[in-house]
């Protein structure tokens, strides 16, 4: 009776399958404990690295191990997505495969503003299309969340109809979209044209106000 031990040391033929991120592939858990509200908010989509392979059989003792980086709301969904994509690429299913590792990938430098390019494939009412979108954000998860929101609002495409092909941080020179390029200005300056008067907490909200609010400045 052979014991099937899959230790981290015995990783043969480590092949990246789709969703290869051009950023660092290492899992870095954000160490700093004191994060202020703002940057590291609660992301709807988390980035996971899922590693899996087919189960070893008599004919194939050491099947190839595949790794995928994908976005999902939780780990369970991430594993499910992993098998979905792997099934389309290799002859392996969840029933005859095993997930070896699943780790969440965190942002390396969440205080640095980056330009993210997202390549995606989505299903519209008439067929499948590819798209390339650019976002400016501090974290990749934030950019992906922006992407899902934008696709839903602009194209009425829901989350399950979107497949992220690739994401990458783009240096400012290579950005294609004017809406991201307009912020590549080291002396950026603009006024806030409309000031919405808001009570500092929802508890202090009132229907009627004593005086007209000052919307200017």
């Amino acid at each position, binding site marked *: 009776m052979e014991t099937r031990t899959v230790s981290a040391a015995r990783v043969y033929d480590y092949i990246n399958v789709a969703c290869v991120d051009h950023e660092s592939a290492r899992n870095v858990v954000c160490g700093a404990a004191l994060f202020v*509200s703002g940057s590291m908010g609660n992301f709807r989509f988390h980035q996971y690295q899922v590693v899996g392979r087919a189960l070893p059989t008599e004919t194939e003792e050491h099947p190839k191990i595949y790794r995928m980086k994908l976005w999902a709301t939780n780990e369970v969904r991430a594993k499910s997505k992993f098998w979905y994509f792997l099934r389309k690429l290799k002859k392996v299913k969840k029933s005859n495969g095993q997930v070896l590792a699943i780790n969440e990938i965190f942002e390396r430098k969440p205080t640095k503003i980056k330009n993210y390019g997202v390549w995606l494939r989505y299903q519209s009412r008439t067929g499948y299309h590819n798209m390339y979108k650019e976002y400016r954000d501090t974290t990749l998860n934030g950019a992906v969340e922006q992407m899902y929101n934008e696709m839903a609002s602009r194209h009425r495409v829901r989350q399950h109809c979107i497949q992220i092909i690739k994401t990458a941080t783009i240096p400012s020179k290579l950005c294609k979209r004017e809406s991201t390029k307009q912020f590549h200005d080291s002396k*950026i300056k*603009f006024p*806030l*044209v409309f000031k919405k008067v808001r009570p*500092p907490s929802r508890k202090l909200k009132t229907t009627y106000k004593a005086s007209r609010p000052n919307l200017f*400045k």
Partner: protein
Amino acid sequence: MLQPFKRYVEIGRVAFVTYGKEYGRLVVIVDVIDQNRALVDSPEMVRGQINFKRLSLTDIKIDIPRVPKKKTLIDAMETADVKNKWENSSWGRKLIVQKRRASLNDFDRFKVMLAKIKRGGAIRQELAKLKKADVA
């Protein structure tokens, strides 16, 4: 030259946080992420992003390069004397008074009541004197 806007979102602009967990904090806009968000920093907090809807721009602006190191930021804030400028500005003074009033205990409020009565009395005395002088 009359400019319609006096306070701009720019690198180095000091802003006041008006909503959320960071309410009441003075932060410096360190970079602009996009149309709605800025990267802000402050000596006591980790650099983070914040929506412009949660900020109120002030008149104070400091001279910093884009996204400076924490130490550079603190030094720039010292040279520009942000803290004193803020506390001497009418906005800053109002906030200090509000905070003081909110932190009064019952005895303090009693003292305030007596002080108000005394002040009112003094004003009315002066007014009476002036009225008398007017009549005469």
